[in-house]
């Protein structure tokens, strides 16, 4: 039986291996045909004219992720501090399951919420269609909240109470002790949560498709529509053939490489946190 257990454990290795092989084997030839420079650096995506530049999508993905992070980090880390040190017990009993629910809401439902609330809000205040990079940033910021909150709260609670008590003993207030002593001590755990959030934001697909506008042009304004790499894949895969299809798979390869880099950063930070 031990062999069966070990074999099952090998399936996750096999899965990663297969994902790499299938993606690279199907994506790289297309990328080579288009030309790596033209594909990664090209600013025009027009499959009908055989122009496959995904730079606008790469830039959009990165910018949307940064926007989401600004919202997610500020609210997320502060909420985690609130949960760990300020929240009354009764409120905690409601807020904590609420955050778990936030993590469980499907991305299409987030997209729907974006369409009903965020997009009209932007349309009314800034004009334009409202389907915009800003809408995507706000929704993604909300979507990565639970990840950042949960990871940060765990990290904050793992800091020995002696740190906090020592600071109090030196005459610092409760608030100052937490912000100047406990939060810095939980730094690597909080960063790990943020990096997980980066992964979620850059890989999110359905919600972004519904609210970002999807124009495959260089992002030039917060209020203009953008198309991320993920959106590009889903929007066109249904009818793409030949080189167009290969270019879409190659887009997935680029996204995959981004994710691998993010994962490596995450493991490094996590190991750092474990050593403390």
């Amino acid at each position, binding site marked *: 039986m031990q062999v069966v257990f070990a074999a*099952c454990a090998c399936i996750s290795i096999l899965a990663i291996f297969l994902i790499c092989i*299938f993606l690279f084997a199907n994506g790289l030839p297309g990328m080579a045909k288009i030309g790596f420079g033209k594909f990664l650096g090209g600013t025009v995506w027009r499959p009908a004219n055989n122009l496959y530049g995904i730079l606008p999508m790469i830039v959009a993905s990165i910018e949307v992720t940064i926007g989401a992070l600004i919202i997610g980090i500020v609210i997320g880390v502060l909420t985690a501090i609130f949960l760990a040190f300020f929240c009354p017990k009764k409120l905690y009993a409601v807020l904590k399951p609420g955050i778990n629910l936030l993590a469980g809401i499907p991305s299409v439902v987030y*997209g729907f919420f974006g369409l009903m609330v965020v997009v009209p809000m932007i349309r009314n205040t800034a004009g334009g269609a409202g389907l915009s990079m800003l809408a995507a940033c706000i929704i993604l910021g909300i979507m990565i909240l639970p990840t950042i909150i949960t990871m940060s709260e765990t990290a904050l609670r793992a800091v020995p109470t002696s740190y906090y008590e020592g600071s109090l003993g030196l005459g610092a207030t409760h608030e*100052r002790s937490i912000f100047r002593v406990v939060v810095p001590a939980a730094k690597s755990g909080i960063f790990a949560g943020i990096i997980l959030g980066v992964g979620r934001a850059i890989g999110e697909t359905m919600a972004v498709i519904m609210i970002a506008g999807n124009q495959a042009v260089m992002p030039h304004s917060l209020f203009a529509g953008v198309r991320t790499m993920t959106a590009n894949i889903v929007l066109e895969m249904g009818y793409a053939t030949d080189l167009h299809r290969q270019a879409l798979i190659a887009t997935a390869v680029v996204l995959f490489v981004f994710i691998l880099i993010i994962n490596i950063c995450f493991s490094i930070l996590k190991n750092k946190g474990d050593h403390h």
Partner: protein
Amino acid sequence: MSNQTPHGKGEAKVLKALVWAAGIITMAVLLVIVLTVLINGLPHIKPSLFSIHYNTKNVSLFPAMINTLTMVGLSLLFAAPIGIFSAVYLAEYAKRGSKFVAFIRLTSETLTGIPSIIFGIFGMLMFVDACHMGYSMLAGALTLALMILPVIMRATEEALHAVPDSYREGSFGLGAGKLRTIFKIVLPAATPGILAGVILGVGRVVGETAALIYTAGTVAQIPKNIMGSGRTLAVHMYSLWTEGMNVDQSYATAVVLLVVVIILNLISDLIAKKVNKANQ
């Protein structure tokens, strides 16, 4: 606390206000999301939405509900045994700190971080094309099984580690072998924790869209068998929205999805409470 400088007190007040504001914003966001879905969706829930067969008149979401159940069952059929057995290997057999174990952990962690659209493209290339399954429930379920595998693995491993060693020693002392100890003593003791992982997996399957569109396809009927294409609720909602003809029914589907997710969360909270009580 009595001999504070005024500066320290002012700072404390600002910081306190900040964290309270953040907590309230988080809570408010959740409330607004839930209310938006309910207010926009509930008026559109009609009996015709639950007709047995989908047609363009009733836009029934019933087939999608059945497909969601099938998808959950099928993907668990693959992911649960493999995930639990992997965790048994990691927790009960493998030597701590071995390179092999570290490698398995690294891969399962990597698997956790891969976005669903990448799984979708992989499933399309491997199961739909290379294995000639076509757009089918089976191809979708296999893809999702890989997605939820690390979730189940991790929860099970943690649950197994939480079982006290005295259980194992007692069982060995009574003459039971290792395998019998695992199946009769350790796994039953770890069941709530394993269940929590499985429910987390179920939640991911229910909410998944991007990984299914190009693996299980978007046919709005119940397929005859698992080699047929069928859309789950989440895919149904997205498809209705893209088609643009039946947006109201798309909102109604959002309500159903949200209710399912809330129920799943309640169950997992209940289990978590049980686990905590048992550990104390």
